[in-house]
């Protein structure tokens, strides 16, 4: 892990500081491969895999073909024992200090490691989700716009039917209007003809009445008093005869 740290930070130093770009340029002039800088290749999501938190997994993979699973452990143990026996590393009070610091560090990492990692992931996740929200909102807006557009197109199709209906409507109104006017004209004509008829009727009636009155007047004038007496006596004798017949039958 520490070696990885050196590589990572060397890379970081290369890109940082005042001489950063210069270094990159210098190294680029020596490169002869046709690598392009865009699009930027994606970073790996997780760091390198490590065994026991410190030793990179690559060491185990490296030694596996020759020494199997226990190879690196044997190497570690051997190195440690060699250094102890040859007193390259002397056990002194610093060993105790190292042990206690190691214990504190390992305890801290084991206990708070996952929480801290989750927190870092949450920070990144929030960043991504904010952008995702904007994107999703834009997507929903656009799909909504598509739906609305489709509806508008459907409406446009229906508009011809609307025009037909309106045309029918107008035609009906015109027809109605025409019929009304026709009706009105008929009524007016009928009224005038009725008037003429009434006038003629009146004329004829008046003539008739006048004639009847004249005839009556002349007849009444022509009746002399003698005729009147005679007719009255006749009526009386007729009545008496009738009365007799009526008595006879009853």
């Amino acid at each position, binding site marked *: 892990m520490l070696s990885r*740290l*050196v590589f*990572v*930070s060397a890379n*970081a*130093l290369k*890109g*940082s500081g005042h001489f950063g770009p210069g270094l990159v340029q210098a190294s680029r002039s020596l490169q002869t491969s046709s690598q392009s800088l865009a699009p*930027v290749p994606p*970073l790996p999501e997780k*760091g390198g895999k490590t065994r026991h938190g410190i030793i990179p997994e690559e060491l185990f993979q490296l030694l596996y073909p020759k020494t199997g699973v226990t190879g690196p452990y044997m190497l570690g143990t051997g190195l440690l024992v060699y250094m102890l026996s040859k007193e390259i590393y002397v*056990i*002194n*009070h*610093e*060993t*105790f*200090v*190292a*042990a*206690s*610091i190691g*214990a*504190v560090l390992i305890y801290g990492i084991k206990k708070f490691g996952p929480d*801290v*990692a989750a*927190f*870092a*992931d949450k*920070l*990144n996740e929030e*960043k*991504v989700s904010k952008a995702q929200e904007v994107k999703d909102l834009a997507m929903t807006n656009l799909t909504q716009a598509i739906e609305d557009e489709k509806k508008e197109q459907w409406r446009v199709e229906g508009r011809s039917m609307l025009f037909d209906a309106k045309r029918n409507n107008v035609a009906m109104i015109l027809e109605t209007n025409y019929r009304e006017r026709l009706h009105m004209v008929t009524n007016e004509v009928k009224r005038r003809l009725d008037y003429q008829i009434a006038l003629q009727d009146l004329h004829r009636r008046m003539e008739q009445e006048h004639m009847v009155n004249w005839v009556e007047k002349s007849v009444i004038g022509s009746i002399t008093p003698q005729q009147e007496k005679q007719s009255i006596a006749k009526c009386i004798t007729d009545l008496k005869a009738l009365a007799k017949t009526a008595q006879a039958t009853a």
Partner: protein
Amino acid sequence: MASFFDQFMSPTLMGIPLMALAFVLPWLMFPNPAPRWINSRFLTLQSWFINRFTSQLLMPINVGGHNWALVLASLMIFLISLNMLGLLPYTFTPTTQLSLNMGLAMPLWLATVLIGLRNQPTAALGHLLPEGTPVPLIPVLIIIETISLFIRPLALGVRLTANLTAGHLLMQLIATAAFVLLPLMPTVAIVTSVVLLLLTILEVAVAMIQAYVFVLLMSLYLQENV
């Protein structure tokens, strides 16, 4: 004859002084943000911490003092990384050297004082007399406040040095005691080891706290004068 103070000697390798290396190497622990939108977990946490810390620190200071944001934040990162790395075995802690701490404290303190005297001399001098002092005490109090003002850089530097040196020394002593007692009285050695463990936890806390206190007091002095 190895003494307990060997850990505080300036590190050299075959005559080449390594002091510069000692306080430049922690820079490697703080990578630059990559030109990416989402960074690694470490970088996310680092930038979160620095942002949070700086905003907290600069909250009580008014806008004129915000020029000091970079200085204070980088000072904090520097001190905290030096202190924490010094807790590892066989390492040299530069902040145990009075020269380093005074070299940090004195110029920064002097800068705050000069800024205060230049921009608002009346207010800066007014800090020498607290409010509500009885009139007969004024001359004495001014002298006392002046002394306290001039002692500030000394206090800053010596506080950091003394805390870290004492902590390291104590760890060495108790570890030596445990080491020596191990063949003689193993149980006592175990008790001593437990004490050492507790002390280590304390040292971790002290390392972080002392760095923070240094920077906090500096921001306080800035706040007075800006």
